[in-house]
């Protein structure tokens, strides 16, 4: 089964995945209109800054077993095995945040949501864009990422690709530059700057 695979080395920190995710979980489904909605939709993927100010797209791992599911006393969190997705039922959530305490990745947020009960904050996290996928689309974050940091594929296929790349790098006369020269140059400048300022 296909899933969203994260390739952290490709993330350029543009945060477009966040915009697309929020838009996909709005009522109006376009960015401009989504921003005007009350309540405003919020992203379920979150780009954080690494030690060298590189980007990292942090999304729910849909763990199995899921710590959040085990922590939820209201029984609002359940797993849909057919799509390998951990879901939160907005109507049963009591906003106690036990799930967030249990989650090792910090991907759960709490707010009133366009797709939840009105006037009541609930736990909100990635739902693997189940509505989009049911219509034959790819998850919104994957569709918008132009740097290849988020792909939608079988995990095995992604790992096979990685195996091939690693195997290639082991050959003699292998091209040592796995990353494009410009990316490597900018990265080394940023690392240098941060190291100089004591980070």
């Amino acid at each position, binding site marked *: 089964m296909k899933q969203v695979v994260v390739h952290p080395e490709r993330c350029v920190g543009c945060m477009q995945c966040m915009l697309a995710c929020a838009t996909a979980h709005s009522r109006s489904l376009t960015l401009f209109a989504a921003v005007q909605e009350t309540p405003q939709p919020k992203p379920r993927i979150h780009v954080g*800054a690494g030690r060298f*100010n590189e980007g990292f797209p942090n999304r729910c791992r849909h763990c199995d077993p899921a710590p959040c599911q085990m922590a939820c006393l209201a029984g609002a969190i359940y797993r849909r095995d057919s799509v390998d997705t951990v879901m939160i039922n907005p109507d049963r959530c009591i906003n106690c945040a036990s799930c967030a305490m249990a989650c090792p990745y910090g991907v759960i947020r709490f707010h009133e949501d366009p797709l939840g009960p009105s006037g009541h904050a609930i736990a909100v996290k990635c739902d693997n864009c189940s509505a989009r996928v049911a219509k034959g689309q790819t998850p919104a974050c994957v569709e918008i990422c132009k*740097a*290849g940091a988020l792909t939608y594929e079988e995990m095995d296929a992604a790992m096979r690709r990685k195996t091939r790349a690693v195997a290639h790098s082991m050959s003699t006369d292998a091209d040592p530059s796995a990353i494009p020269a410009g990316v490597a*140059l*900018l990265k080394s400048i940023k690392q*240098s700057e941060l190291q100089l300022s004591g980070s």
Partner: protein
Amino acid sequence: MFDPRESLSVTQDGDRLFAKAQQDGVETVWERHEAQQPQCGFCDMGLSCRICIMGPCRVDPFGEGPQTGVCGADADIIVARNLCRMIAAGAASHSDHGRDLVEVLAGVADGSAIGYKIRDEAKLRRLAEEYGVATEDKKPLVIAGELAQAMMEDYGMRQKAVKMVARAPKKRRAVWEKFGLTPRGIDRETSEMMHRTHMGVDNNWQSLLLQAMRNSLSDGWGGSMIATEVSDILFGVPTPRPTTVNAGVLKDDQVNIVVHGHNPVVSEMVSKACQDKALVDLAKEKGAGGINLVGVCCTGNELLMRRGIAMAGNHLMTELILSTGAVDMMIVDYQCIMPSLGKVAACYHTRMVSTSDKAKFPHMAHHEFHPHNAEKKAVEVVRSAVENYVNRGKVLIPVTSQEAVGGFSVEAILGALGGTPEPLIEAIKAGKIRGAVGIVGCNNPKIKHDYGHVTLTRRLIENDILVVDTGCVAVATAKAGFKVPAAADMAGPGLKAICNALGIPPVLHMGSCVDNVRILVLVSALADALGIDISDLPVAGSAPEWYSEKAVTIGTYFVASGVTTHLGPMPPITGSMNVVNLLTSGLKDVVGATFAVEPDPEKAAVFLRRTIEGKRKALGLDARSVD
């Protein structure tokens, strides 16, 4: 909560005032920089394009996503266009600054610019001659009017070349002619740059960058040079004079007025108003000892160069100065003024005043200065500052001020050398002074505040390289104590001897950022004296902590004039290795100079020393090897 691991500044007042700002709940540039992380890699690499609405577009640097914009522009074109627009913006800023001075000159001639006058008639006449304005038997005001008209022509399309291009050495002008780099008109080149970067115009990345160099030269030998020269005519040619720097220049028992921005058209009038007897008396009535005018950034540098007025800080200090609680008023005009300042000031009693019709800011009271009313307006705003003195709350001025010497115009340097560049040339030939580096530019939260400037300066003077500086750098090195005669002890033996003999510090403050043209004039004089091109001289440039578009333009006009220039932070060009390679290597074959990027000032020092020793060797002078 932003938690810097280490101190953010190499300066005491920077660290102490940052702590005070945090304590007072004041948000600064550092918190906002942190909140922006991670900054978008597409933009950082120059690979995002917003020039038309078929976009916005971005190119995937990893080669899998889109490789061209909707119009078909590839990474080379997108990166080049973005850089070109930065250069156009920088050139426009400096050239507008020059334009405002030309307007005042014209206003002095026709009497409408009340309170302004010609302070250096000799320079007026010299400049008029350069512009083909006859000066014999003509009154200064008439000359001024005709010179102003002639300078206005420099901004347009009627000429083959901007007039002061003629100041460059013959060999350098020949290089410009060969590659089509001779700037024709100041506004013209900026306008053409904007045209060329419109969708579907110039789609050759080399052609775009050549126009960018021409545009930068229309600033360096045009707009900025006019700004500096007319400022000298109206306000005086700087001569060496003592001053003081850092937050300690604020006084807890006097009315403190800080001028910020760029154009001396405003700060000179404020300076005059601060000496108004009625206002000084008013200050005393309010319990203050007097009126203490200080500057930050370039307009402060202008006042320091000509009047020895103290400098409270550079770019990253502009918010922190306010957190002393000691600033009764900050008066701004344009450029490098953070729109956050009004919010910072609102946490204290400080009154913020904007003065330029071109530059309005949130939470500032707008009192528009024009040449015909500036003198009067200055008195009004200074009065308001004096009246604000009684509203002071707690004050923390966390350091005592540092002495420094500024005022090294080219005229002053030549004067110190005895009237000609000969003694400096002899010292360079003999190897006592290996060469010279102009360290220029701004601050940037990406680099520890002033760390780049101070470290680089120290390493260069230790190795007998004379340093001249301008802008934010000049404040950094003054604060670090490099600008007192005793600082010669920090220099290597050769430089130390020269400094002691001439009674100058090893680091010469040459002015504000438009005054970078003074460096162009100086290297031209040296090149002419030796009959060589600027690119043959053992000189180099550096902007260790730059941030602004103006800095890109300045760096480009230095390189285009033959001065290899180091940059600390990387410009947004890594999206195209073609552009990177042209700027850092290919330009050698075009203009005889290149850029180099290195955030670490220790490594930058090694690079600059190698560059200088390499030039020495090529001239047949003794050359040291640098490890």
